[in-house]
Protein backbone atom coordinates (compact mmCIF):
# COMPACT_ATOMS: atom_id res chain seq x y z
CA UNK A 1 0.00 0.00 0.00
CA UNK A 2 2.77 2.40 0.97
CA UNK A 3 4.60 1.47 -2.21
CA UNK A 4 1.56 2.40 -4.27
CA UNK A 5 1.27 5.77 -2.52
CA UNK A 6 4.93 6.45 -3.23
CA UNK A 7 4.66 5.83 -6.95
CA UNK A 8 5.28 8.94 -9.07
CA UNK A 9 2.49 8.20 -11.47
CA UNK A 10 -0.50 5.94 -11.40
CA UNK A 11 -2.26 4.48 -14.39
CA UNK A 12 -4.97 6.98 -15.39
CA UNK A 13 -7.52 4.21 -14.85
CA UNK A 14 -6.50 3.77 -11.21
CA UNK A 15 -6.33 7.50 -10.49
CA UNK A 16 -9.64 7.98 -12.33
CA UNK A 17 -11.25 5.29 -10.19
CA UNK A 18 -10.06 7.08 -7.05
CA UNK A 19 -11.50 10.38 -8.27
CA UNK A 20 -14.76 8.64 -9.22
CA UNK A 21 -15.03 7.34 -5.65
CA UNK A 22 -14.33 10.84 -4.33
CA UNK A 23 -17.26 12.15 -6.41
CA UNK A 24 -19.57 9.42 -5.13
CA UNK A 25 -18.68 10.06 -1.48
CA UNK A 26 -19.02 13.82 -1.91
CA UNK A 27 -22.45 13.54 -3.50
CA UNK A 28 -23.66 10.82 -1.14
CA UNK A 29 -22.57 12.53 2.06
CA UNK A 30 -23.03 16.24 1.38
CA UNK A 31 -24.72 16.52 -2.01
CA UNK A 32 -21.75 18.51 -3.31
CA UNK A 33 -20.48 18.08 -6.88
CA UNK A 34 -16.75 18.78 -6.48
CA UNK A 35 -15.37 21.54 -8.71
CA UNK A 36 -12.33 23.76 -8.87
CA UNK A 37 -13.24 26.90 -10.80
CA UNK A 38 -16.10 28.12 -8.60
CA UNK A 39 -13.75 28.77 -5.70
CA UNK A 40 -11.84 31.37 -7.69
CA UNK A 41 -15.09 33.16 -8.43
CA UNK A 42 -16.08 33.15 -4.74
CA UNK A 43 -12.66 34.53 -3.81
CA UNK A 44 -12.78 37.01 -6.69
CA UNK A 45 -16.09 38.26 -5.33
CA UNK A 46 -14.53 38.73 -1.90
CA UNK A 47 -11.70 40.76 -3.41
CA UNK A 48 -14.20 42.85 -5.38
CA UNK A 49 -16.16 43.52 -2.18
CA UNK A 50 -12.98 44.73 -0.51
CA UNK A 51 -11.62 47.03 -3.22
CA UNK A 52 -14.62 47.97 -5.37
CA UNK A 53 -17.91 47.09 -3.62
CA UNK A 54 -20.10 48.29 -6.51
CA UNK A 55 -18.67 45.56 -8.70
CA UNK A 56 -19.60 42.92 -6.14
CA UNK A 57 -23.24 44.04 -6.36
CA UNK A 58 -23.78 42.91 -9.93
CA UNK A 59 -26.14 40.09 -10.83
CA UNK A 60 -23.38 37.53 -11.19
CA UNK A 61 -21.98 37.92 -7.70
CA UNK A 62 -25.42 38.40 -6.16
CA UNK A 63 -27.17 35.41 -7.61
CA UNK A 64 -24.82 33.09 -9.51
CA UNK A 65 -21.59 33.02 -7.52
CA UNK A 66 -21.94 34.72 -4.16
CA UNK A 67 -18.63 35.90 -2.65
CA UNK A 68 -17.46 34.15 0.48
CA UNK A 69 -15.52 31.26 1.93
CA UNK A 70 -17.72 28.52 0.50
CA UNK A 71 -17.32 24.75 0.42
CA UNK A 72 -15.81 25.25 -3.06
CA UNK A 73 -13.02 27.31 -1.48
CA UNK A 74 -12.43 24.55 1.06
CA UNK A 75 -12.24 22.00 -1.75
CA UNK A 76 -9.67 24.17 -3.52
CA UNK A 77 -7.63 24.37 -0.33
CA UNK A 78 -7.91 20.59 0.01
CA UNK A 79 -6.72 20.16 -3.59
CA UNK A 80 -3.50 22.02 -2.78
CA UNK A 81 -2.90 19.91 0.32
CA UNK A 82 -3.79 16.62 -1.40
CA UNK A 83 -1.59 17.30 -4.41
CA UNK A 84 1.24 18.44 -2.13
CA UNK A 85 1.07 15.29 -0.01
CA UNK A 86 0.90 13.12 -3.13
CA UNK A 87 3.94 14.86 -4.68
CA UNK A 88 5.90 14.74 -1.41
CA UNK A 89 5.23 11.02 -0.94
CA UNK A 90 6.62 10.20 -4.36
CA UNK A 91 9.48 12.69 -4.24
CA UNK A 92 7.92 14.46 -7.21
CA UNK A 93 7.82 17.82 -5.43
CA UNK A 94 10.12 20.55 -6.76
CA UNK A 95 9.96 24.33 -6.75
CA UNK A 96 10.72 25.57 -10.27
CA UNK A 97 10.01 28.72 -12.26
CA UNK A 98 9.66 26.87 -15.57
CA UNK A 99 8.81 23.37 -14.54
CA UNK A 100 7.96 21.42 -17.64
CA UNK A 101 10.66 19.69 -19.74
CA UNK A 102 8.47 19.67 -22.84
CA UNK A 103 7.84 23.41 -22.60
CA UNK A 104 11.57 24.09 -22.27
CA UNK A 105 12.36 21.90 -25.26
CA UNK A 106 9.81 23.57 -27.52
CA UNK A 107 9.61 27.17 -26.30
CA UNK A 108 12.92 27.62 -24.44
CA UNK A 109 13.62 28.31 -20.80
CA UNK A 110 12.58 32.01 -20.79
CA UNK A 111 10.64 32.55 -17.59
CA UNK A 112 8.58 35.53 -18.81
CA UNK A 113 7.22 33.56 -21.77
CA UNK A 114 5.93 30.70 -19.66
CA UNK A 115 4.54 32.98 -16.98
CA UNK A 116 2.82 35.27 -19.50
CA UNK A 117 1.13 32.34 -21.25
CA UNK A 118 0.18 30.86 -17.87
CA UNK A 119 -1.28 34.16 -16.69
CA UNK A 120 -3.27 34.83 -19.86
CA UNK A 121 -4.31 31.17 -20.10
CA UNK A 122 -5.47 31.31 -16.49
CA UNK A 123 -7.65 34.33 -17.20
CA UNK A 124 -9.24 32.58 -20.20
CA UNK A 125 -9.75 29.37 -18.23
CA UNK A 126 -11.57 31.10 -15.42
CA UNK A 127 -13.53 33.42 -17.69
CA UNK A 128 -14.63 30.53 -19.88
CA UNK A 129 -15.55 28.40 -16.88
CA UNK A 130 -17.58 31.31 -15.52
CA UNK A 131 -19.61 31.59 -18.70
CA UNK A 132 -20.05 27.86 -19.20
CA UNK A 133 -21.07 27.23 -15.59
CA UNK A 134 -18.11 25.12 -14.54
CA UNK A 135 -14.78 23.67 -15.52
CA UNK A 136 -13.44 20.23 -16.33
CA UNK A 137 -14.27 18.98 -12.85
CA UNK A 138 -17.53 20.68 -11.89
CA UNK A 139 -19.15 20.68 -15.33
CA UNK A 140 -17.47 18.09 -17.61
CA UNK A 141 -17.31 15.35 -14.95
CA UNK A 142 -19.88 16.63 -12.45
CA UNK A 143 -22.43 17.16 -15.23
CA UNK A 144 -21.29 14.32 -17.47
CA UNK A 145 -21.97 11.77 -14.76
CA UNK A 146 -25.66 12.78 -14.90
CA UNK A 147 -25.53 12.87 -18.70
CA UNK A 148 -26.26 16.60 -18.60
CA UNK A 149 -26.14 18.03 -22.15
CA UNK A 150 -24.18 21.04 -20.86
CA UNK A 151 -21.24 18.78 -19.96
CA UNK A 152 -20.93 17.29 -23.42
CA UNK A 153 -21.33 20.62 -25.18
CA UNK A 154 -18.57 21.91 -22.94
CA UNK A 155 -16.22 18.96 -23.57
CA UNK A 156 -16.74 19.22 -27.33
CA UNK A 157 -16.15 23.00 -27.29
CA UNK A 158 -13.03 22.56 -25.18
CA UNK A 159 -11.50 20.31 -27.84
CA UNK A 160 -12.76 22.37 -30.77
CA UNK A 161 -10.73 25.35 -29.53
CA UNK A 162 -8.00 23.46 -27.67
CA UNK A 163 -6.75 21.49 -30.66
CA UNK A 164 -6.14 24.50 -32.96
CA UNK A 165 -4.61 26.42 -30.05
CA UNK A 166 -2.10 23.65 -29.43
CA UNK A 167 -1.47 23.40 -33.18
CA UNK A 168 -0.86 27.15 -33.51
CA UNK A 169 1.58 27.07 -30.60
CA UNK A 170 3.52 24.03 -31.76
CA UNK A 171 3.28 24.43 -35.54
CA UNK A 172 5.90 22.15 -37.11
CA UNK A 173 6.48 20.47 -33.77
CA UNK A 174 2.81 19.44 -33.52
Amino acid at each position, binding site marked *: MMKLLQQKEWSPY*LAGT*LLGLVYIVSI*AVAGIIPGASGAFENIGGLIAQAIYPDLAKNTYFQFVMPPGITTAV*MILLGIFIGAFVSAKLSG*DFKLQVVSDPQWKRVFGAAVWKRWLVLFLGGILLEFGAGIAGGCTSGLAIGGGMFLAPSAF*IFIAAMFISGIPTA*WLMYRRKY
Partner: protein
Amino acid sequence: MFEMLFALIIGFGFGFALQKAGLGKYHKIVNVFRFTDLAVLKFMMTTLAVSMVGTFALNSLGIIALPAIPPTYVVGNLIGGLIFGVGMAGAGF
Protein backbone atom coordinates in the same frame (compact mmCIF):
# COMPACT_ATOMS: atom_id res chain seq x y z
CA MET B 1 -18.80 23.39 10.07
CA PHE B 2 -19.01 19.69 9.21
CA GLU B 3 -19.65 20.59 5.60
CA MET B 4 -16.54 22.81 5.45
CA LEU B 5 -14.30 20.16 6.95
CA PHE B 6 -15.82 17.52 4.70
CA ALA B 7 -15.17 19.71 1.64
CA LEU B 8 -11.53 19.98 2.68
CA ILE B 9 -11.24 16.19 2.80
CA ILE B 10 -12.96 15.84 -0.59
CA GLY B 11 -10.51 18.39 -1.98
CA PHE B 12 -7.65 16.37 -0.54
CA GLY B 13 -8.76 13.24 -2.39
CA PHE B 14 -9.34 15.30 -5.51
CA GLY B 15 -5.86 16.83 -5.49
CA PHE B 16 -4.26 13.52 -4.62
CA ALA B 17 -5.92 11.72 -7.55
CA LEU B 18 -5.04 14.46 -10.04
CA GLN B 19 -1.41 14.62 -8.94
CA LYS B 20 -1.08 10.82 -9.16
CA ALA B 21 -2.55 10.92 -12.66
CA GLY B 22 0.14 13.47 -13.58
CA LEU B 23 -2.43 16.15 -14.36
CA GLY B 24 -0.42 18.77 -12.52
CA LYS B 25 2.03 18.67 -15.39
CA TYR B 26 1.85 20.96 -18.41
CA HIS B 27 2.75 18.31 -20.98
CA LYS B 28 0.01 15.93 -19.80
CA ILE B 29 -2.67 18.52 -20.45
CA VAL B 30 -1.38 19.97 -23.70
CA ASN B 31 -0.54 16.58 -25.23
CA VAL B 32 -4.16 15.52 -25.15
CA PHE B 33 -4.78 18.32 -27.67
CA ARG B 34 -1.86 17.03 -29.76
CA PHE B 35 -3.14 13.43 -29.51
CA THR B 36 0.25 12.23 -28.29
CA ASP B 37 -0.84 11.33 -24.73
CA LEU B 38 -4.47 10.63 -23.98
CA ALA B 39 -4.01 10.18 -20.22
CA VAL B 40 -6.32 13.12 -19.48
CA LEU B 41 -9.16 11.55 -21.45
CA LYS B 42 -8.59 8.08 -19.97
CA PHE B 43 -8.58 9.64 -16.52
CA MET B 44 -11.69 11.74 -17.12
CA MET B 45 -13.69 8.95 -18.71
CA THR B 46 -12.77 6.50 -15.93
CA THR B 47 -13.91 9.06 -13.35
CA LEU B 48 -17.14 9.58 -15.28
CA ALA B 49 -17.84 5.85 -15.53
CA VAL B 50 -17.08 5.10 -11.88
CA SER B 51 -18.96 8.06 -10.43
CA MET B 52 -21.92 7.52 -12.75
CA VAL B 53 -22.37 3.86 -11.85
CA GLY B 54 -21.82 4.43 -8.13
CA THR B 55 -24.10 7.43 -7.79
CA PHE B 56 -26.97 5.97 -9.76
CA ALA B 57 -26.66 2.60 -8.00
CA LEU B 58 -26.95 4.32 -4.60
CA ASN B 59 -29.77 6.49 -5.91
CA SER B 60 -31.71 3.51 -7.30
CA LEU B 61 -31.37 1.76 -3.93
CA GLY B 62 -32.95 4.83 -2.40
CA ILE B 63 -29.89 5.60 -0.27
CA ILE B 64 -29.01 9.01 -1.69
CA ALA B 65 -30.73 11.84 -3.53
CA LEU B 66 -29.26 13.34 -6.70
CA PRO B 67 -27.88 16.89 -6.39
CA ALA B 68 -28.81 19.79 -8.68
CA ILE B 69 -27.44 18.98 -12.13
CA PRO B 70 -25.39 21.68 -13.93
CA PRO B 71 -27.92 23.57 -16.10
CA THR B 72 -27.76 23.51 -19.89
CA TYR B 73 -27.78 26.81 -21.80
CA VAL B 74 -26.34 25.86 -25.17
CA VAL B 75 -24.77 29.16 -26.23
CA GLY B 76 -23.19 29.78 -22.83
CA ASN B 77 -21.85 26.26 -22.44
CA LEU B 78 -20.49 26.41 -25.97
CA ILE B 79 -18.84 29.83 -25.86
CA GLY B 80 -17.54 29.22 -22.35
CA GLY B 81 -16.09 25.91 -23.46
CA LEU B 82 -14.44 27.49 -26.50
CA ILE B 83 -12.73 30.13 -24.36
CA PHE B 84 -11.84 27.52 -21.77
CA GLY B 85 -10.18 25.29 -24.39
CA VAL B 86 -7.85 28.09 -25.53
CA GLY B 87 -6.79 28.71 -21.94
CA MET B 88 -6.38 25.04 -21.21
CA ALA B 89 -4.22 24.32 -24.25
CA GLY B 90 -2.12 27.43 -23.62
CA ALA B 91 -1.61 27.30 -19.89
CA GLY B 92 -1.68 23.52 -19.61
CA PHE B 93 -3.83 23.31 -16.54
